[in-house]
């Protein structure tokens, strides 16, 4: 099934913009200033065709939100961009960062080149202390501890605590803090509010908002409230393909559309 068919698939709303594999068309919308272009990205894992030709762009400022139901492949998209497709899988297509093809380059090189990544399940190193976790993430001689500790004072208070014993919210802060230490061209952040108490969700959202003023962000987020607060552009993935792209507000303003695309109640979080 091609992207074209997908857009007119029965049962799909025709209210929003339909997806298209033609990246250039999208470039107009974002004023031509796209930082990252994903074109026809396909991922197969263990024989499953998980992404089937995904194309979208990330603007060079603000937050671009990647939306979709559980298991459609949002995390897989972020991971494929970063070259983290598992060994029993393969990614094809094109990913360009500032015009340069980056698909297939080793992850560490991409991160060094300025792609900061906050993974879905936080992945703090449980056996290391908070300070050690941060130290490990340093990529420059002048890591911006002021910014990180300013955003998350908790982290400086708990510098000697083992990361494994932090609460989920604190771990999330640490995970964010690790990328914010370094200058980045683009942040890839996967569900930063997952499993967090509402109060912490608010804090994280605020932190993201501030971070996004300096660095563009590609964000995967299920919590529509957070999306509402942050989103510039939105990209919706369904059944392995891009089902909708457009300004986030437009998507959220239309509950029927939201519900049909995301199968989550627009009122709620998850």
């Amino acid at each position, binding site marked *: 099934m091609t992207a074209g068919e997908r857009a007119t698939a029965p*049962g799909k709303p025709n209210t929003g913009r339909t997806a298209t594999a033609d990246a250039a068309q999208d470039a107009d919308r974002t004023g031509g200033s796209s930082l990252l272009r994903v074109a026809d990205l396909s991922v197969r894992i*263990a*024989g*499953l065709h998980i992404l089937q030709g995904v194309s979208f762009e990330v603007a060079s400022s603000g937050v671009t939100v990647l939306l979709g*139901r*559980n*298991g459609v492949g949002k995390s897989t998209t972020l991971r494929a961009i970063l070259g983290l497709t598992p060994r029993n899988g393969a990614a094809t297509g094109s990913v360009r960062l500032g015009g340069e093809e980056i698909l297939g380059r080793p992850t560490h090189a991409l991160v060094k080149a300025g792609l900061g990544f906050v993974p879905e399940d936080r992945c703090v190193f449980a056996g290391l202390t908070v300070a050690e976790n941060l130290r490990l993430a340093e990529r420059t001689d002048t890591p911006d501890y002021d910014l990180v500790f300013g955003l998350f004072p908790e982290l400086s208070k708990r510098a000697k605590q083992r990361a*494994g*014993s932090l609460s*989920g919210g604190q771990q999330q802060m640490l995970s964010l803090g690790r990328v914010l230490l370094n200058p980045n061209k683009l942040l890839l952040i996967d*569900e930063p509010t*997952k*499993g*967090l*108490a*509402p*109060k912490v*969700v*608010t804090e994280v*959202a605020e932190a993201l908002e501030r971070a996004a003023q300096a660095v563009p962000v590609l964000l995967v987020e299920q*919590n529509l*409230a*957070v999306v*509402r*607060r942050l989103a510039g552009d939105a990209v919706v993935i*369904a*059944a392995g393909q891009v089902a909708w792209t457009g300004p986030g507000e437009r998507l959220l303003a239309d509950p029927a559309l939201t*519900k*049909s*695309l995301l*199968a*989550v*109640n627009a*009122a*709620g*979080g*998850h």
Partner: protein
Amino acid sequence: MDHPVPGTTEAPSAPQQRPGRSLGSPEAPAVLATDALTWRIGEVAIVDGVSLQLHPGEFLGVIGPNGAGKTSLFNLISGLRAVTAGRVLLHGADITALAPHRRAQRGLGRTFQSSSVFGSLSVRENVRLAVQAHRGGSMALWRRAATYREVAERADECLAVVGLGARGDALAGTLAHGEKRKLEIALLLAGEPSVLLLDEPMAGVSAEDVPELVEVIRDLTAHSGRSVLMVEHHMDVILELADRIAVMHHGALLACDTPDAVMANATVQEAYLGEGL
């Protein structure tokens, strides 16, 4: 609604065999009960003093944010993890110390959040293995498995129920995601369990297939008075199927009540559904 589930609009017409909410009463004997069930890793309580009752024929939905401990709760009930404290009771008997297969023999069946089928066996072999497991797990080494007629027939029945009849010869590892989920349900069916634990059966199932799968699950439970504990993030599916809803948060049970009451519960609103912002 993107994938209208048949019967959404007529929720009260839930099958009669399912006494439903009326059985939520405390005096009815529970088929499955947990008593202050706790699982700790280090100092962290992943499951924290959960006490639940599942009544005969009841469909209990479990919701909660990611990482709330739902899957962990299932792991404790099905015996894949050893509890730190508390008890699990099945049909009134304490099964806390039993091995997973013993619990399964007593009628406890489960699916996994991430599809778990035997990838190197064919679809049919998968189900036959499950049927055979249910039929007492004979240790015969010599007789060809294929000669067990009833096993084969029962396996084909199960496959037909979930609509995989035509895929019997495919290697399970090569199935599409939704098909794997169906196969898992067929595996579950084969065991003829009296209590089902379903961990996000809809995850990864394409929208078009959701109604079909909902029907399969409804069939599973409707005929036999089976009781079900199901984790699901699709609220509409939960609301469609569940008699009661349990809400988990940070390992603890936040609420356990009728769908309406749960949806109206302020704490639940805040912790799970709620507007943090």
